[in-house]
C-alpha cells in the first residue's frame, strides 16, 4: 500500500452461517469422496495378464509379448532431477528478499500505475514433488505449488496442483490484487472557467472517485477419475472486491461520499462426464453462484461546519468561497461558506447515507455432448439454462440537510416490500449451441454452427419515501439547515416501478473448408444472426446481420505459416417497428475486419512473427456519421544465437480512431468561448429533436500508439545470468475537447520501463538475485488540476535457495 493509501478501515462482516444449498453441496462432496473410496477399495485388482490396451488401440497384450520388450537393449528409467525425499523426487525453491522503491513526481499516479513500496518480500516459492514409486505414495503422486509477491507487492498469488494417478486431480489458486486509482482528469468537477459573477472554482488535485480496493480470488477444482469412462468434478470459486472508495451523489449540490465498496461472489461447480459410446461423451454441469453486494455510503469528510454548531456539513464539490461573513442571510447573492463556516440557508448536506444489500443467486444447468462416433462426422453441442434471482433487502437512504430549490429538509427512502425490500429482479438466460462438421472428401469439409442466446431481465421496485419539505420559500419561513424537522411538513408516498430488458440472438454459421493442397487451405462461409431486443414497453426491435467469412492458411513448409482471415458484416432493420439499422448510434451497421498473421522459424534458434489487424466500421445513418477503425501492425523476433544468449524484440503500431456526430450544450462566456466550428446543425437542430442551444460535435478520437520492447538474456557462465530490457509505449493521441480546460492526459503520454536482472550463483544451490526497474511516465498535454508525471526506481534484492 502506498503512503497515501494508509486507509485501515476494518472489515465488517455478517455472522457466518451454513444454509441449505451449501449443506447439500457439502453432502454431495462427502458422498462423492465416500463413493470413490469404497469403489476404489473394491477395485484393487491384482495385475492382469490379459489386459486391454490403453487409449488408442484395441489390441490385447498377452504375456508372451513381454519377451519382445527385452530386445533390443533396454534401460531402466532414471529418476528426474532433484533430491529424493522419502518416495518423492523433490524440487524446491524459495527466494527471500526485499524491494526498495524510490519515486518522484505524482504520488497518486505512481500508486495508480505502479503501486510498489519498500519492504521485505517473499519474492517467490515453488515446490515440485513427483512420486518415485506410486504404489508407495498413497495420497498423491504429483504435487506442485508456487507463490509470488507476498509481503507487500500490490499483487500476489499462490497455485497448487496435485494428482494421484487415475484417481484424482486437484487444481487450486489464490490471487490478490490491490487496486488504487487516482487519475485526476476523470470525474473532475471543477474544470471550469470563471464567470463575471463568480471567482474561479477550485480544481481538486485528485479525482472525486478515488478507489483503494483489494480483489481476492480463490479457485479450486477437484476432478475424480480423470482418465476413466466416468469422471466427475467439483469446484468452488470465491471472489471478493472490497475497500474504501469515494463516490458522488447529485442531491442539491454534488456531494462527495465515502463508499465502502464490498462485493463477493461464491460459485460452486459440480459436473460429470460419461463416455457413453465410441468417442462420444455426455456431460452435465451444475453451477450455483451467490452474489453479495454490500457496498454502502456515508458522507465523506468535509472541512465545513454549520454556523452556531460544529456539525459538519458538505456543500457539494463545487464550493463558492469569499471573504465576507454573511452567515444567517439568504443564500442567493451571498457566499455559501466563509472561513470554514457554511451558510445554513444554502443547499448543503449534513447526512447522506445509503445501504442496499443485494443478494443474487445464479443457479445454472448445462448439458454438453461431443461425438466423433463416425469417422467423417464430428459434432458437439450444449444447452444451458440459468435462472438468476436478485433481491435488494433492508434498503435505506437518508438525506438530512437542505435542498433549497425544492425546500427539502430531510428525506428517508426505504423499500416498500416486506423486510424493507426495495427490488426484486430476475435474469433468465437460455443458451443452445450446436456444431456439426462433415468431412465430405479428403479435401473438402463443411461445418455448421447454430447459436441461440436469449436472456430476459424483468425487475420491479417499490419505494417508500418520507420527505420533509416546505411548500414555498415562506412555508415554513426562513427554512434552512438548522430548522427543526418538527417545523417542516412531511409527506409519505409509495411508488412502484417495473423494468424489462430482453435480447434474443439466433444465428447460424456455415463454413466450407477446402484443403486445396497440403500447403494451402481455403475457407469460406456465411454467418447469419437474427437479433431481437425489447426494452421496457418499447416494441420489439429486430435486426438481421449477415457476415461473409473468408480465410486462408498458407503453410509451404514446417517453418512458415501465414493465416489470413476476413469477415464483413452488414446489419439492417428487419421489421417495421425498427427504424434504424442498429440499436445504438455508435454501433456499426457495417464492419470490415481483416487479420493477417505469420509465423516463421527459418532456423531452430530463430522465431519471427508478424501481424496486421485492421478493423473498419461505420454507422451510415445520416444523423450519426459514425466511423471507426483500429489498425495494428506488429512484429516480434525471438533469437537464440547461442546456448548462453537469447534476444527479444517487439514492435507494434496501433491506432484507434472514431468519430460520431453528437450534440452538446455550451453557454459561451469570455473565459470559455465556443469550441472552433461549433454550430447548431445536423442532428442537433430542433427539427431533429435538438434545440437552439445544442451544438454539433464530432466525438473525434484518435490514439496512435508506438510500442517497443527489446531485451537480451546472457548467461556466460553457469553461475551467472544477466537480463536487460527496455519497454517504451508512446501515445500521441488527440480528441475532441468540449470544455477548454480539458486535457489529453494519458492520451498524450510516454511510458518508459527499462529493467535489468542479475542472478549470481554464490554457492551450490544458492543464488543471489538483483533486479532494477525504472518506471517513467510523462504527459505532453496540459497539466490540468495537478501534474501527473512520475519517475521511480524499484530495486529488488534477494537470495534464492533451490534444489
Amino acid at each position, binding site marked *: 500500500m502506498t503512503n497515501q493509501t494508509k486507509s485501515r478501515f476494518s472489515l465488517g462482516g455478517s455472522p457466518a452461517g451454513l*444454509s441449505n444449498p451449501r449443506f447439500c453441496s457439502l453432502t454431495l462432496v462427502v458422498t462423492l469422496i465416500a463413493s470413490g473410496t469404497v469403489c476404489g477399495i473394491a477395485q484393487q485388482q491384482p495385475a492382469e495378464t490379459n489386459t486391454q490396451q490403453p487409449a488408442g488401440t484395441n489390441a490385447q497384450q498377452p504375456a508372451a509379448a513381454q519377451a519382445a520388450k527385452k530386445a533390443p537393449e533396454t534401460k*531402466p528409467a532414471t529418476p528426474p532431477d532433484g533430491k529424493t525425499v522419502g518416495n518423492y523426487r523433490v524440487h524446491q525453491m524459495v527466494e527471500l528478499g526485499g524491494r526498495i522503491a524510490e519515486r518522484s513526481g505524482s504520488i497518486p499516479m505512481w500508486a495508480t500505475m505502479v503501486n510498489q513500496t519498500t519492504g521485505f518480500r517473499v519474492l517467490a516459492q515453488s515446490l515440485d514433488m513427483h512420486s518415485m514409486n506410486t504404489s508407495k505414495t498413497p495420497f498423491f503422486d504429483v504435487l506442485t505449488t508456487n507463490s509470488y509477491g507476498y509481503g507487500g507487492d500490490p499483487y500476489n498469488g499462490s497455485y497448487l496442483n496435485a494428482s494421484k494417478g487415475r484417481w484424482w486431480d486437484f487444481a487450486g489458486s489464490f490471487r490478490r490484487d490491490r487496486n488504487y486509482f487516482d487519475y485526476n482528469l476523470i470525474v473532475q468537477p471543477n474544470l*471550469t472557467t470563471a464567470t463575471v459573477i463568480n471567482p474561479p472554482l477550485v480544481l481538486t488535485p485528485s479525482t472525486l472517485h478515488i478507489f483503494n480496493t483489494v480483489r481476492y480470488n480463490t479457485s479450486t477444482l477437484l476432478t475424480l477419475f480423470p482418465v476413466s469412462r466416468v469422471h466427475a468434478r467439483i469446484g468452488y470459486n470465491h471472489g471478493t472486491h472490497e475497500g474504501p472508495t469515494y463516490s458522488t451523489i447529485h442531491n442539491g449540490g454534488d456531494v462527495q461520499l465515502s463508499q465502502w465498496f464490498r462485493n463477493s461472489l461464491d460459485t460452486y461447480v459440480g459436473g460429470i462426464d460419461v463416455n457413453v459410446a465410441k468417442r462420444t461423451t455426455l456431460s452435465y454441469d451444475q453451477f450455483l*453462484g451467490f452474489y453479495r453486494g454490500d*457496498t454502502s455510503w456515508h458522507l465523506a469528510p468535509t472541512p465545513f461546519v454549520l454556523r452556531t454548531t460544529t456539525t459538519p456539513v458538505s456543500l457539494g464539490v463545487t464550493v463558492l468561497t469569499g471573504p465576507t461573513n454573511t452567515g444567517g442571510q439568504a443564500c442567493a447573492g451571498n457566499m455559501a461558506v466563509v472561513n470554514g463556516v457554511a451558510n445554513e440557508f444554502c443547499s448543503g448536506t449534513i447526512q447522506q447515507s445509503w445501504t442496499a444489500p443485494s443478494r443474487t443467486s445464479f443457479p445454472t444447468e448445462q448439458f454438453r455432448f461431443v461425438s466423433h462416433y463416425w469417422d467423417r462426422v464430428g459434432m458437439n453441442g450444449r444447452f444451458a439454462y440459468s435462472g438468476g434471482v436478485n433481491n435488494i433487502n433492508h434498503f435505506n437512504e437518508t438525506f438530512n440537510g437542505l435542498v433549497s430549490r425544492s425546500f427539502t429538509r430531510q428525506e428517508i427512502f426505504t423499500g416498500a416490500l416486506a423486510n424493507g425490500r426495495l427490488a426484486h429482479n430476475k435474469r433468465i438466460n437460455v443458451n443452445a449451441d450446436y456444431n456439426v462438421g462433415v468431412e465430405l472428401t479428403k479435401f473438402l469439409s463443411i461445418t455448421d454452427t447454430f447459436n441461440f442466446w436469449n436472456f430476459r431481465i424483468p425487475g420491479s421496485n417499490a419505494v417508500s419515501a418520507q420527505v420533509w419539505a416546505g411548500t414555498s420559500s415562506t412555508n415554513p419561513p426562513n427554512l434552512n439547515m438548522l430548522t427543526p424537522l418538527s417545523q417542516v411538513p412531511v409527506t409519505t408516498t409509495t411508488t412502484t*416501478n417495473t423494468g424489462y430488458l430482453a435480447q434474443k440472438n439466433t444465428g447460424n454459421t456455415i463454413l466450407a473448408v477446402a484443403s486445396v493442397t497440403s500447403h494451402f487451405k481455403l475457407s469460406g462461409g456465411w454467418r447469419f444472426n437474427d437479433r431481437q431486443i425489447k426494452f421496457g414497453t418499447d416494441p420489439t426491435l429486430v435486426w438481421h446481420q449477415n457476415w461473409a467469412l473468408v480465410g486462408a492458411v498458407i503453410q509451404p513448409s514446417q517453418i512458415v505459416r501465414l493465416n489470413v482471415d476476413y469477415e464483413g458484416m452488414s446489419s439492417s432493420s428487419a421489421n417495421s417497428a425498427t427504424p434504424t439499422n442498429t440499436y445504438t448510434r455508435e454501433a456499426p451497421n457495417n464492419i470490415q475486419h481483416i487479420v493477417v498473421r505469420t509465423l516463421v522459424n527459418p532456423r531452430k534458434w530463430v522465431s519471427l512473427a508478424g501481424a496486421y489487424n485492421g478493423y473498419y466500421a461505420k454507422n451510415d445513418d445520416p444523423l450519426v456519421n459514425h466511423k471507426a477503425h483500429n489498425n495494428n501492425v506488429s512484429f516480434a523476433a525471438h533469437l537464440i544465437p547461442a546456448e548462453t544468449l537469447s534476444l527479444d524484440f517487439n514492435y507494434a503500431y496501433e491506432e484507434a480512431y472514431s468519430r460520431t456526430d453528437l450534440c452538446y450544450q455550451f453557454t459561451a462566456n469570455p473565459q470559455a468561448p465556443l469550441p472552433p466550428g461549433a454550430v447548431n446543425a445536423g442532428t442537433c437542430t430542433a427539427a431533429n429533436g435538438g434545440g437552439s442551444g445544442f451544438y454539433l460535435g464530432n466525438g473525434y478520437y484518435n490514439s496512435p500508439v508506438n510500442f517497443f520492447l527489446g531485451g537480451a538474456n546472457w548467461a556466460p557462465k553457469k553461475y551467472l545470468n544477466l537480463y536487460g530490457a527496455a519497454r517504451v509505449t508512446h501515445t500521441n493521441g488527440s480528441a475532441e475537447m468540449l470544455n477548454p480546460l480539458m486535457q489529453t*492526459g494519458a492520451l498524450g503520454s510516454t511510458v518508459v520501463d527499462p529493467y535489468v536482472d542479475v542472478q549470481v550463483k554464490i554457492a551450490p544451490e544458492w543464488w543471489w538475485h538483483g533486479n532494477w526497474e525504472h518506471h517513467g511516465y510523462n504527459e505532453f498535454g496540459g497539466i490540468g488540476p495537478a501534474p501527473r508525471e512520475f519517475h521511480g526506481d524499484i530495486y529488488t534484492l534477494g537470495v534464492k535457495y533451490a534444489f
Partner: protein
Amino acid sequence: MHRDGPFTRMPEVATPPIRQGLLVFLILLFAVAFCTSRAIADPPQQGSPAQAKSGQAAPASDEYVGQDTCAGCHEEVVKGFATNPHTRLAEMHGKTGVTCESCHGPGKAHVDGGGDVAKIFNPAKATAKEVDAKCLSCHRGQHSNFEHTAHGEGNVSCLGCHNIHKAAETGPLLKATQPTLCFECHTDVKPEFNMPFHHKVEEGLITCSDCHDPHGTFNRKNLRASTQQDAVCTKCHVETAGPFVYEHAVVKTEGCVACHFPHGGPNPRLLNRANVNTICLQCHSPSPNFTTSQPLGPAHNQAVQYQSCTICHTEVHGSNISAVFFATQ
C-alpha cells in the same frame, strides 16, 4: 494474507423444491456411476483415428515394445516423462499401460528398422490435422470446440502451444508460460497490455485463459462466459452483472466493449474515449429514430461544471433506484 470476509449468506428466498430434488438426483447418479467398477477401471476405448478411418485392424500386442525399450535410445526424453501427466497411462491395467506408444504408435517396426523414422508417428513431422486427431482421440471431451474454431481452423495444431516432452509449464504442458506463449503469435495484443491502463496480464496476475479459452468456445473470439452465461467480464466485475430494475441496456446488448477496451488503452478505467462525456453523448444525442438516445444527454452546459457525466450518473451499469442512474431517487 487472505483475510476472511463475511461468510456468504444465502439469499432470502426459499430454494425451490426442484433444486433440492436435482441435488438428490445428482448424488444418486454419482453413486451409481462410481460403483460401476468395470466402467471405472477401464479407460475409454476410443480407438485410433487412423486405424478406424483406414479400416485397419488395431496393432497386435506384440507390436508394442514398452517404455524401457524407448529409453534405450531416447533416454533423456523418457527421463523427463516421469513428470509428465501422461505417465498416468502407465498406471492403467495393473501398471502395464503403454505410454510412449500411446501417442507414437507401436514401436516394434521402428526398433526393428534400426530407428527408422518412417515407421513411427512423429508429431513434429505430421500435419496439423494429424496432430489434432491424435490428441483429440483422448482429449476431445475436454476440447470439443477446437477443430471448428480459430486455432483448429488456422492449422495452429496442439503442438502450436503444447510440447509434450519439453514443457515450460508442466501441468498443461505448455511450450511457454502465459502470456509469452500467446504473444508469440498475437503480437498485436501485446502492446495493449503495456498501455497506461491495462489488465495485469504482463504482471502475471491475470492470464489470457482467464477470459479466452484457447481451445475454442461457441462465443466470438473464443471468449468464455460467466457461470450465469453472461459476459466473461462479470466473472470479476460482478457488480455490473445485475440484474437491475433499470438496466443500462447497452451494457447487456452491446457488451462491455461498447465503452471499454478489454485489454488496455491510454484512457482511465480502460474507457475507449479520453473524455467520459464523449462516450455518453455518442448515444445520448438527439436522433429521431434511435430510442437509445433517450434520455437526451446535452442537458448540461459543458462550459462550466458537470465536467463528467458520472459525477451524477454514477450507476451507469444499472440501478435499482433511478431510471437515470443517479445514486438516489
